């Protein structure tokens, strides 16, 4: 199957996933077009993080299909490297490599995985660190940076691979309140540049502001979805209403 930019960049069809007895995803389908920013919200344990971890094959699925630019992820012969060049990921706990400086963290994958020239990779990395507004912190180790700064390095690190879509897994959940804003601003900049983003988040105001589409998940299924304005104003399902009333 040939994929064209007119097709969905990421397409999930009837995805089922369970950890042993525990069913986490129960038939999830959604499409993400190029340049879309979608937010997945929902109560804890509803399968949001698992959903996006499946997209870059950190978790495998039992049934269904996940297509990333036409490449099937649910395939035992999956070329993971090809997939991960296309899909970047930012984690809740940043997961920077503690023994490498900020600059090294950003350059490492392009040099090691994409076999880029070192000088060129460094140039790109410095530009990305500027982009996430961390100029001057190039030689700091992760342990010397605040949570918000580490998270922005992590975003730069995933951008260095020039992915077509980036997954954000509750990236502000572990941050001190005062550093949340700077990370959200960075993501907003990305969204404005036209990067395709899939976010799992608890920041409702942020979701409302940047998202093109909101998905609400509960107990492994998508309960309701829609553009932010209609979603937040006219939620239909009682579960969505209850969730929103608790959060807002």
């Amino acid at each position, binding site marked *: 199957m040939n994929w064209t930019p007119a097709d969905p960049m990421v397409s999930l069809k009837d995805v089922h996933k369970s950890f042993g007895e525990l069913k986490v995803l129960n038939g999830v389908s959604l499409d993400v077009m190029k340049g879309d920013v979608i937010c997945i919200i929902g109560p804890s344990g509803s399968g949001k993080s698992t959903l996006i971890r499946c997209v870059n094959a950190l978790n495998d699925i039992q049934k269904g299909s996940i297509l990333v630019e036409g490449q099937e992820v649910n395939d035992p012969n999956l070329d993971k490297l090809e997939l991960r060049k296309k899909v970047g990921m930012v984690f809740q706990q940043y997961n920077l490599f503690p023994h490498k400086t900020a600059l090294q963290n950003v350059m490492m994958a392009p040099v090691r*995985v994409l076999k880029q020239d070192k000088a060129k990779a460094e140039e790109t990395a410095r530009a990305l660190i500027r982009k996430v507004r961390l100029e001057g912190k190039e030689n700091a180790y992760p342990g010397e940076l605040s949570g918000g700064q580490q998270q922005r390095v992590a975003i730069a690190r995933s951008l260095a691979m020039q992915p077509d879509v980036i997954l954000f897994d509750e990236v502000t959940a572990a941050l001190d309140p005062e550093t949340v804003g700077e990370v959200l601003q960075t993501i907003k900049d990305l969204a404005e540049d036209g990067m395709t983003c899939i976010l799992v988040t608890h920041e409702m105001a942020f979701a409302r502001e940047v998202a093109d589409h909101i998905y609400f998940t509960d107990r492994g299924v998508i309960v309701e979805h829609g553009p932010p304005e209609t979603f937040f104003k006219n939620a239909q399902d009682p579960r969505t209403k209850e969730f929103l009333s608790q959060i807002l």
Partner: protein
Amino acid sequence: MEFVFDWFRTLYQETGINLPFLYDEYDRNRMIGGFLTTIWLSLVCLFFSVIIGVIGAWLQGSSFKWTRRIVNGYIQLFRNTPPLVQLYFFYFAIGTLLPRVENDWGGQSPILGSFAWAAISLSFFAGAFNVEIFRSGIEAVPKSTVEAAEALGFSKLQIYRDITLPLAFRVVLPALNNNLVNLVKTTTLAYAIAVPEMLYEANQIWSDNVNVTEMMIFLLLAYFALVGVLVSGMNRWERAMKIPGYG
């Protein structure tokens, strides 16, 4: 230098404190040779025991039950039996099974000498500890950090080489250094199969000069200094390897 040598010769003549390796060239060369052999044996064993440790730790993560069992059997066997008996087993029992080769004088000599057997035996002994040390280090690397590397497209081997091993190495450095210090002390066992290391050469000297007391005290001080220098060097290294920002 001659002045120092003379001084110790006089010391012997005047007080009876006999340190022949400080005025007699033959004995001095023996002592220096012994010292160098100890260092060389330690380095060789260090090298091979670390390799055994890395490979063993890697094999312990194998998905084959029998691979893990064999590695575990090796660890328990070498950790719970006396290194001296291991050395004898290697040198006498296995050494005699190997074919002999003709030496320069037309006679028959074993294919591996006592130094080689000491190196093999002590490497396996120290390696058994290293496997467990490395494994605990690898287990200390958070799964999420490995996942981050995976998400960046690193291959398994790249993750092991660029992320897991460097991080694990920093964690295990104190334990590894401790093992190295033990290794240096354990090289004295090679005395038992006549490897000319420090203890053996000291023994030769006190047999020739009947000065056990002086040699014994010198030997204790020499090992104290050698291990002391090693320990302080290691501590410095551990401090230098600390990742900034983490305890």
